[in-house]
């Protein structure tokens, strides 16, 4: 019997990896989620607590998948605090995925926005020339740098970390580093995921140079399957029409970079 993607499947946490003092990766076995496309997400039920949308993180082991979660408010902190052997419900995968292009590729990620980008790396061709920009406030919030280098070891590639306080890698905003790169390299495509203000800037920069760009959008999500309306983003629904949109569309969406809806559906500024 094929599994109904809208009914939670219970998985057991098999491994917990500390990425930074506030970010952990929870690994579990699940054939379906291990094979999702880059950009797709799951609705993750922490039984008795809440359910959150989470990008599906890769695991290097076959048949396994993971979530990489930053402890933040109540639900994400509960998720972050789960131990090996504890259960999660997962439904999905939901959402669209990044379009796989070839050539000189730039990925710009911040925080847990790196999750879909890391998965995307595993879909790239060995002939691609790949640059990954990792943005972070400070050194001890940096993660996935080593993993990205490993995935790209057979590619021409660069993994560049940018910290706002200069405690590691380059100094400044990731978007500043991106502008610098643009003056040196002509990229064929840009992918981004992270804070919306950052993505907005990335999309503007790429578009201004006529480079094809895609971003994965976050909105309040309840159903994940396109009926509740909570993830509404202009005339599109982030969970269903997205989460990945191309820059051309995004620049026509007047919410992009500015506003999102809260749990009651009221627009709030970023």
């Amino acid at each position, binding site marked *: 019997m094929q599994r109904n993607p809208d009914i939670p499947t219970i998985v057991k946490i098999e491994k917990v990896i500390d990425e930074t003092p506030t970010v952990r990766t929870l690994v579990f076995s699940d054939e379906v989620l291990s094979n999702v496309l880059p950009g797709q997400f799951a609705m993750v*039920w922490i*039984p008795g607590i809440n359910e959150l949308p989470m990008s599906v993180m890769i695991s290097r082991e076959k048949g396994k998948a993971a979530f990489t979660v930053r402890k933040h408010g109540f*639900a994400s902190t509960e998720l972050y605090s789960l131990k090996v052997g504890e259960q999660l419900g997962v439904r999905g995968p939901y959402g669209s995925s990044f379009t796989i292009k070839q050539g000189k590729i730039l990925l710009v990620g911040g925080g847990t926005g790196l999750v879909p980008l890391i998965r995307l790396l595993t879909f790239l061709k060995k002939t691609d020339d790949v640059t990954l920009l990792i943005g972070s406030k400070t050194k001890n919030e940096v993660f996935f740098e080593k993993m990205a280098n490993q995935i790209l070891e057979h590619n021409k590639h660069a993994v560049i970390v940018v910290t706002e306080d200069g405690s590691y890698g380059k100094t400044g905003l990731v978007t500043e580093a991106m502008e610098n790169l643009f003056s040196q390299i002509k990229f064929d495509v840009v992918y981004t995921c992270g804070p919306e203000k950052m993505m907005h800037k990335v999309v503007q920069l790429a578009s201004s140079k006529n480079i094809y760009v895609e971003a994965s959008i976050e909105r309040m999500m309840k159903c994940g399957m396109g*009926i*509740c*309306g909570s993830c*509404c983003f202009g005339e599109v629904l982030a969970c269903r029409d997205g989460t990945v949109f191309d820059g051309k569309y995004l620049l026509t969406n007047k919410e992009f970079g500015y506003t999102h809806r809260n749990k009651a559906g*009221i627009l709030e500024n970023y």
Partner: protein
Amino acid sequence: MKPNISTEVGAIKIERPTMLASGILGISLEVFDRLYKEGAGALVTKSLSKEPWEGYPNPTVVGVKAGYLNAVGLSNPGAPYFAKMISSNKTVPIIVSLVGSIPEDFDFMIKQFENVKILGYELNLSCPHVEKVGLEVGDDPELVHKIVKSVKTQSKVPVIAKVGLGSSDYLETVRVACESGVDAITAINTIRAMAIDVETTRPILSHKIGGLSGSAIKPIAVRCVYEISSQFDIPIIGCGGVSSWEDSIEFILAGASAVQVGSALVDKWVGVFSEINDGISKYMEKKNFSKIKDMIGIAKKP
């Protein structure tokens, strides 16, 4: 000649008989506009309350074998905010769904929409998972009477009562609503239901009990439309498990003047409206029906 698929729900005239059901994507004017262009004949908003409601924590919507369970908890931005948001509307046929506990709640909300272009109101007397509103109102005939009377006095546009299966006889709610002057009935809302996960031994929805929608409830909804149309002389909007033109025709034959589509968006997404409209049109052509009206309720013939 192409059949005419426009329809009339009492004084509400719409170009196509397929509406978006309340609570489904019904949160922004842009989405309404898109769905209207995709073929929806009218758009019913999320049920609005006086003040913004956050709704229940997740999980609020999950699948079951034959449909969906939800206990969203009527999350909505509140009538004042919503009225402002759609105040620029000129072209989209919007029906505003309202939820409240006492006549004054409804009066307050109707004031907000006084200068907004809308087709009508749908009173949610049937949400099965929030206390003091919805079904708890619908199950109380006296309160239904008071609310409908009062809303009808205030409103300049037609008023629809949306009923569901609660803990009293829904036909009694329909009777009282009709006697109190309502212009049409929407039947039905979701049916109280739940799912328990056997691995964790817990109810899945955070609210534990929610409402069942989708294919599962269609035969029950068709029955309700058939019963209402057999007993009352009131226009009916069929709702519950509509996912194809056949389903829509089934509701129309049972007595509905139009249908609402909700859960089917999961499988068919926004294309569902034109798919259904085209199917209805082809069916009418084949069967020689020139207008929707000719089909309404004909399954009641002996």
